[in-house]
């Protein structure tokens, strides 16, 4: 059995006195697509942000591809990573945000090639060629020179996915990627994500799109109040939930 892509071992996270993650343990294997569901405030997004160290874990251990996130462990003692090492660690984890967070002063293509040229110091022509391919893959070959303000929400989110893919990540994190979209634009983003899942990308998706989860996900985790309540295949969690809290949540959203 190979190392899991993400392995969380009793992870805790508090903001001040408020404990958002209480003892999260789970594993995501390479090539697996996992959907995280749960009511708002349950800690799904915080957990996702801990995986690429946008938030610091307070207790427990979090590993990506076998490497401890955010710290170095020497003789059983944790040392905070230097900012540059933490940045390096993040560079092969892609993240897609609910509010897209595209760089508004850059065109779609410039958004996609920014990180490869700045972080990986890839030659601009090479990065541009690859950036164009990526934008074609997400169906935006005619929008490369557009600024984000000239794109619809669905188009912006597809650029954001291309931007994350440009760093050739081994893991993609999606934080409610379709929640800020008008209903008719959700499909185009989910289609891109489905295609991506088929290429074997490891993905963790925080979502409320149960249809998408059933079609694409290999596993599903239901979180509530900072804990993992139920884990299983999407069908088992959605169709025959064991826990009362899962049942009550699903009865509200399905």
């Amino acid at each position, binding site marked *: 059995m190979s190392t899991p892509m993400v392995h969380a071992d009793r992870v805790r996270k508090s903001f001040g006195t408020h404990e958002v993650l209480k003892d999260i343990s789970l594993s995501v294997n390479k090539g697996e697509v996992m959907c995280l569901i749960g009511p708002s405030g349950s800690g799904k997004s915080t957990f996702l942000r801990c995986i*690429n160290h*946008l938030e610091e874990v307070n207790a427990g251990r979090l590993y990506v591809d076998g490497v401890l996130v955010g710290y170095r462990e020497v003789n059983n003692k944790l040392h905070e990573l230097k*900012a*540059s090492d933490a*940045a*390096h660690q*993040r*560079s*092969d*984890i*892609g*993240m897609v*945000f609910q*509010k897209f*967070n*595209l*760089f*508004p*002063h*850059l065109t779609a293509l410039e958004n996609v090639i*920014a*990180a490869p040229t*700045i*972080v990986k110091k890839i030659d601009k022509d090479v990065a541009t060629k690859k950036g164009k391919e990526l934008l074609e893959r997400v*169906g*935006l070959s*005619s*929008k490369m020179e557009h*600024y*984000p*303000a*000239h794109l*619809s929400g*669905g*188009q912006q989110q597809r650029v954001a996915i291309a*931007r*994350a893919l440009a*760093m050739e990540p081994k893991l993609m994190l999606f934080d409610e990627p379709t929640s800020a979209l008008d209903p008719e634009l959700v499909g*185009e983003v989910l289609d891109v994500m489905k295609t991506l899942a088929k290429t074997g990308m490891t993905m963790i998706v925080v979502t409320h799109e149960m249809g998408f989860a059933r079609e694409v996900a290999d596993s599903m985790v239901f979180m509530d109040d900072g804990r993992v309540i139920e884990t299983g295949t999407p069908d088992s969690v959605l169709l025959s939930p064991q826990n009362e809290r899962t049942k009550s949540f699903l009865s509200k959203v399905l």
Partner: protein
Amino acid sequence: MTNKVNDQSGSNNSRSDRSFYDEPIKAVRLRHPWRIFSAALLVLWVIAFLTDAAGREAYDWNAYGEYVFDPRILKATIITLQLTAYSMLIAISLGVILAVLRQSPNPVFKAVSWVFIWVFRGTPVYVQLVFWGLLSTIYPTLFFGAPFGGPGFSIDISHSSSLFWIAVVGLGLNEAAYMAEIVRAGLLSVDEGQEEAAKALGMKWWATMRHIIIPQAMRIIIPPTGNEVISMLKTTSLVTAVPVSSDLYTRSRDISAETFNPIPMLLIASTWYLLITTILMVAQYFLEKRFARGHAQIAYGADPKIIGEGA
């Protein structure tokens, strides 16, 4: 007029006549007689003032013509430009540093920045300039280096030749306090998600600042900074407090002290200040346009139809 409108709608009562809706409305414009009257009056006043001013002896237009390109005035204009440029250079660099320190999680950095801004914004620039002029009587030499006799170097500031640079530093330090607030407002205006997205892509702090945050903050920073440059150009006329006498205003006063004819010299100084200000305004327009990329359709009224265009 009212009758005619009624007639037309009457004859098309069925409303099936499409032309009734298709034709653009041709209505008689509402007249604004008072607006026209007061505008005309204003124009007349201006004309009356100008014709009077052209003939009025006290303005002494001959002297104006004689001195407007006087080499001393031209040189003084250059000095004023140098004072403005150098002091703004100090102000912007120091302002950026102060703004960043102010955001720092380190309380000492934060406090230093706060106190600097408090002092330099809280006292008049004229008083500060007089003070800097007297600095050499307090500290004849300035020592830069490690405290308590560590390694470093000294500068002798008691020569009169250092007065120009004392003025530059004096103006720069005062302005830095204002620039710090402008830069801080600019940095805070950039959405938090931008830093997060850059971080998630593996960018380090400086790369994030340089490529993502600062270019966006510039859109907010440039308009007030342009105003500060223009304001600084005029504030340089206070360097006489240091005292520096080579700038445009002080030099033109010196000339009028010889000629006993102050009014044309004031007009000349004003002409040059106004000319430079105008050039700066044009430069600012182009800078703002450059940094409004991605927002261009909002700020500059380009075709808004392009927004939300389908895939």
